[in-house]
């Protein structure tokens, strides 16, 4: 069990103990009241932290989800008289639906558009709460919302605290798991490169909308608890300041850090209590805090503590791991790749015109041609990033033309990129592990994570072995940006191998490498071929191509002008003219 895991488990136990004892330890009921507010506010902040910190999506409308949860449970409990459990459930369901609806925007856009859409959403909810008086009571509000007291009025506040704080602890454990598991890594991948995420088989839209809706539910839960704590809700509670307050807490704690929200919320509550008497300067104080935190301690309090303690998070243990057996390249299942009559037009310009080719398992096929001949387009269409205008793509006899990129990736159609797509926020090892499918089921994975025993050990070992195979062993714990261009290319290759491809598309694998480095790659490609993997390679380096290709297709202006064995291609006059530049002429 690692030190981190031990610390975490001790933390959970201490938190549970504190929750049980706080009501009897508190010198007066005000502290329990404060504890209640802390618990549900922190839940909303955790949701925001997952969204902003992990998936990189921005929301300026979480106050809206909070309000929806709050009104749903309040209206159902007062007007219809439903029992609290049921109203709370309905509230969660409603925020989930609202989250999915707003998340529809998150599906297709990111960053700026999403920030705008959520800002508008929060604004619309606020206006509705104000003006739809028949439903919400407007600024006069809804009164006499039942409290959570399990029939014992005197013990009500204590019970409520236990419920809220218990839920907070559960949410915190859930958040810790997200941050510490493959799920969190995948969210980071989606955050940084959609193309990468699709390539490793992730259904990006589903993940996006899912995490957005989940985050909305956290806010909704907080709103529900708020309604049953205060017993009164009015539209004044839900203006933009609520959202900004939650954001401030998330930022103060430290975005992208699972423990941040607990600290941030504590600071936020302290601030709110302190500035209550200075309310005419409220916005100025909030604004200054946002600026000060983001500019002076952008890593938040958790990061600041780490920095002060001089503690650097490192998985140094792995460096000293025993020598591992050399990696055996495995193919998932031999599949051939057949492309029939592929065409692609961009806005009237045809980039590809009825290109066909077929590659048997264990064969290396090279696609060569001048720049702008359509080679990259071809790879992008085959991989599923672009839709073809005409033609079919068959993988092991199965027509995959209609499938999305991530679905093709799951069938073993794996690629590398000419413009590198690596996840900069995690190290080289994690980049490779992103290519792997999880070996444990979710239950086993959670259990292993919780106890810290052997969590992802197999994946880790395999990834390290693959890195050694491509010669990057010493760089496993570097960030991709610290590697030279050619080495970053190798990380892509390692990630692709980790996906256990049936068919591998290599887009200029040796561009930017010198001849000796290129030879090493050629050696790896030969081993891929021996393992029965079908390889399609786009490359300009003729020594490299002639050394590995079984067959070659030459593209020029989107047409296949020649196809055949390397020797024949090298002698083909049309190819010499179009590509190899035997008759020198200016383009």
């Amino acid at each position, binding site marked *: 069990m690692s030190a981190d895991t031990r610390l975490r488990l001790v933390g959970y136990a201490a938190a549970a103990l504190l929750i049980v004892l706080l009501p009897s330890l508190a010198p007066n009921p005000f502290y329990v009241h404060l504890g209640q507010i802390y618990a549900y506010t922190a839940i909303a902040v955790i949701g925001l932290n997952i969204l902003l910190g992990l998936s990189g999506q921005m929301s300026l409308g979480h106050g809206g989800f909070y309000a929806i949860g709050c009104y749903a449970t309040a209206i159902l409990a007062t007007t219809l008289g439903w029992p609290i459990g049921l109203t709370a459930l309905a509230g969660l369901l409603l925020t989930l639906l609202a989250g999915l609806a707003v998340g529809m925007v998150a599906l297709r856009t990111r960053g700026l558009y999403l920030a705008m859409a959520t800002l508008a959403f929060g604004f619309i909810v606020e206006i509705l709460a104000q003006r739809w008086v028949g439903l919400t009571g407007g600024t006069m509000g809804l009164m006499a919302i039942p409290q959570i007291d399990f029939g014992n009025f005197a013990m009500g506040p204590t019970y409520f605290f236990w419920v809220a704080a218990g839920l907070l602890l559960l949410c915190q454990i859930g958040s810790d798991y997200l941050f510490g598991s493959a799920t969190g890594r995948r969210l980071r991948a989606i955050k940084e490169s959609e193309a990468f995420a699709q390539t490793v088989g992730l259904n990006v839209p589903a993940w996006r909308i899912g995490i957005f809706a989940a985050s909305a539910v956290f806010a909704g839960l907080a709103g529900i608890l708020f309604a049953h704590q205060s017993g009164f809700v009015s539209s004044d509670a839900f203006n933009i300041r609520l959202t900004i307050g939650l954001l401030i807490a998330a930022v103060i704690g430290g975005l992208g850090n699972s423990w941040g929200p607990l600290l941030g919320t504590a600071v936020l509550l302290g601030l709110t209590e302190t500035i209550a008497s200075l309310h005419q300067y409220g916005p100025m104080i909030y604004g200054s805090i946002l600026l000060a935190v983001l500019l002076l301690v952008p890593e938040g309090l958790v990061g600041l503590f780490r920095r002060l303690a001089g503690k650097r998070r490192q998985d140094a243990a792995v460096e000293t791991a025993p020598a591992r057996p050399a990696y055996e390249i495995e193919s998932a299942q031999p599949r051939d790749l057949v492309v029939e009559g592929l065409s692609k037009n961009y806005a009237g310009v045809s980039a590809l015109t009825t290109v066909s080719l077929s590659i048997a398992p264990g064969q290396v096929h090279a696609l060569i*041609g001048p720049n702008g001949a359509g080679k990259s387009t071809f790879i992008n269409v085959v991989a599923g990033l672009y839709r073809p205008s005409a033609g079919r793509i068959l993988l092991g006899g199965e027509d995959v033309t209609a499938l999305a990129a991530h679905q093709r990736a799951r069938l073993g159609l794996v690629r590398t990129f000419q413009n590198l797509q690596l996840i900069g926020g995690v190290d080289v090892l994690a980049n490779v592990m992103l290519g792997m499918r999880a070996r444990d089921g979710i239950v086993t994975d959670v259990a292993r994570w919780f106890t810290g025993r052997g969590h992802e050990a197999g994946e880790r070992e395999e990834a390290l072995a693959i890195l050694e195979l491509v010669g990057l062993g010493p760089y496993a714990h570097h960030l991709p940006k610290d590697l*030279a*261009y050619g080495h970053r290319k190798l990380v892509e290759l390692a990630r692709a191998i980790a996906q256990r491809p049936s068919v591998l598309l290599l887009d200029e694998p040796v561009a*930017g490498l*010198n001849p000796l*480095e290129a030879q090493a790659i050629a050696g790896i490609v030969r081993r891929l071929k021996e393992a029965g993997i079908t390889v399609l390679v786009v490359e300009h380096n003729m020594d490299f191509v002639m050394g590995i290709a079984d067959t070659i297709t030459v593209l020029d202006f989107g047409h296949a002008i020649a196809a055949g064995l390397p020797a024949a291609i090298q002698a083909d006059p049309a190819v010499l003219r179009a*590509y*190899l530049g035997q008759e020198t002429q*200016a383009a």
Partner: protein
Amino acid sequence: MITLENVSAGFGVVQVLHDVSLAVPAGRLVSVIGANGAGKTTLLRTISNVVRPSAGRIVFDGTPTMASEPHRLARAGLVHVPQGRQIVPTLSVRDNLLIGAQRVAGLGAAEIETGLAREFARFPVLDKRQDILGGNLSGGEQQMLAVSRALMMRPKLLMLDEPSLGLAPQVVRTILDALRSLADGGLAILLVEQLAHLALEIADEGHVMQRGRVVISGPAEDLRKSRSLIDSYLG
């Protein structure tokens, strides 16, 4: 035109360049070759002052570069064509050519028109595609545009970072030939290239870099002959 004396540089705590000295006089084409991660790109970025040197002296056209920001150096004629060409995809070929030229002091409208005509004559394909957006050019056309765009600024020193990257052999030839004739016309050129044999073929002088140091220097002709020695440094 440019002289480096014992230049060291790096990012944060990582030192990438150690004690590099070299010079490129007017009319000479100097190639720098080396393995990935040898520090070639950092060398060019240091000369442009994008990366600040931590030690040593760089003198361009008789003036130390220390205090000049990259855009001032570029306007003064130290023109750097970065890796990956960096053609602005949302501007036309013509506008791309104008960005730099319009910022060089003393280049009037008439000189700029002359420059455009000269570059269109150098790479006729650009003439035909004047109004096409930069992003819609092929890799080879983009590299020609990048060279022309730099030449529009009336450089005294032209630095190129891997102009061959991702280009078909024929286009590489066209570009390298253009560079050779520019040097013959009196321009100082510093060329960083992966394709060592091609780079040495057109160069007057060569430097081989390994882990941030210049390990071999000499006339390109001599370096071409000792191919196996050079290969041992490229691995």
